[in-house]
């Protein structure tokens, strides 16, 4: 079991959940488990960066990066918001 932090831009797809506990040994397993629980996330995760233990998985083994129980997984889609919240709509649901 590991904790995945859901970014605010994706919480509409997780029923507002900020953190989700998922099963698996690798990042791929965890994300598969996550999308099976919240199918609305299907196709939404490809453009998010993924961090395990504070490190970008691209600098480790990508989706095959092993995840231990104590690791927190952070999903990070690009955020654009700054000047005007009116344009916060332009965040990608990556």
């Amino acid at each position: 079991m590991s904790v995945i932090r859901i970014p605010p831009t994706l919480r509409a797809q997780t029923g507002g959940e900020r953190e989700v506990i998922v099963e698996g040994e690798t990042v791929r397993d965890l994300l598969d488990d996550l999308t099976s629980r919240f199918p609305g996330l299907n196709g939404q995760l490809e453009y998010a960066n993924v961090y395990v233990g504070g490190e970008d998985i691209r600098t480790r083994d990508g989706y095959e990066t092993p995840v231990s129980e104590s690791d927190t997984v952070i999903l990070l889609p690009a955020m654009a918001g700054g000047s005007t919240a009116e344009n916060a709509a332009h965040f990608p649901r990556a």
Partner: protein
Amino acid sequence: MSSYRDLLEETRQQIGEIDVKRARELYGDAVPAVFLDVREREEWDEGHIPGAVHLPRGWLESRVEQAVGDRTRPIVAYCAAGNRSVFAARTLEELGYTDVVSLAGGINDWKRHGYPLEVPTGGLAPEQRTRYSRHLLIPEVGEEGQLKLLQSRILLIGAGGLGSPAALYLAAAGVGTLGIVDADVVDETNLQRQVLHSTASLGEPKVESAERTIRALNPDVEVKTYKELLTSENIDRILADGWDVIVDGADNFPTRYLVNDAAVWHDIPLVHGSIFRFEGQATVFKPHEGPCYRCLFPNPPPPELAPSCAEGGVLGVLPGVIGSLQASEAIKLALGIGEPLIGRLLLFDALTTTFTEVALRRDPDCPVCGDHPTISEYIDYVEFCNPLHA
């Protein structure tokens, strides 16, 4: 009871002295001694040994630990003629400094030998010394740093949620020139967080409202306004005005990518911030030293993954936290001090009051700052949102 003469000679016997020739050798060492100037401000301003630390004798005991943390570091104390520095040297020894000498003959003798001298040009005016006194007290800033800030030029992209606190703190800090790019006018929904503007400025262009607020706060600051939407057509012209740091408080992806690419090509550090609801993030993209925005997100997401058009919302104080962090980073970059957020992304959650940091790495395959760039011209992305998700 001893006279001043007696006391001076007695103390002189107790401390070490060197002449200016020996001091000149120490000055040229690979690891030079700390030259500690214990004279008054006016004397310092008339000329001092380059690189010396200025600490008037009246402040010696209370501030020397901040100025010279390592008590084993060699210190050459000097004054005008080598008398006050005798007493300063003894005080330093009493404070536990183990390698202290006084410069016999002082800076007068140093000058007579034609050794290097630095005469500050255009130091702080008396009213500036008062206004920035709390900066002057910090060893990492000091007068030299404050003068540097007054000569710094920082460009703000956006005078909105993030740009507001950033601009206010940069102006208050005495950043000499602030550029502001924003095409919008102030509307009522802005006032919940955009603290540069006020009810009286409703309907006014944001750059004008911002300029007025900044001038009222600090007349030292020159404000350069660009009432235009940043595009591939005007970005080079705006950057050609010369900027030391860019603070990105943009609200949309096309601008974020444009500013990132320009920062890389113009080699200007970019302080990034973004906010959404209760959460924000900040980092520093310093070209060629760390990653750029495209190392994180090489391209905007495809249209089918575009966000909904629904209002996102943001806690009004959140840009205050993130924009202030951006101002702090920009000041550090302008001064060249500390450890900026290069290669580190700071995530802030106001709801749980937690800061999290993740590591960002430069991507050698980055299309803009990588080893073999594939993008060499600005791209005007079309802003999109997806009504199907609304």
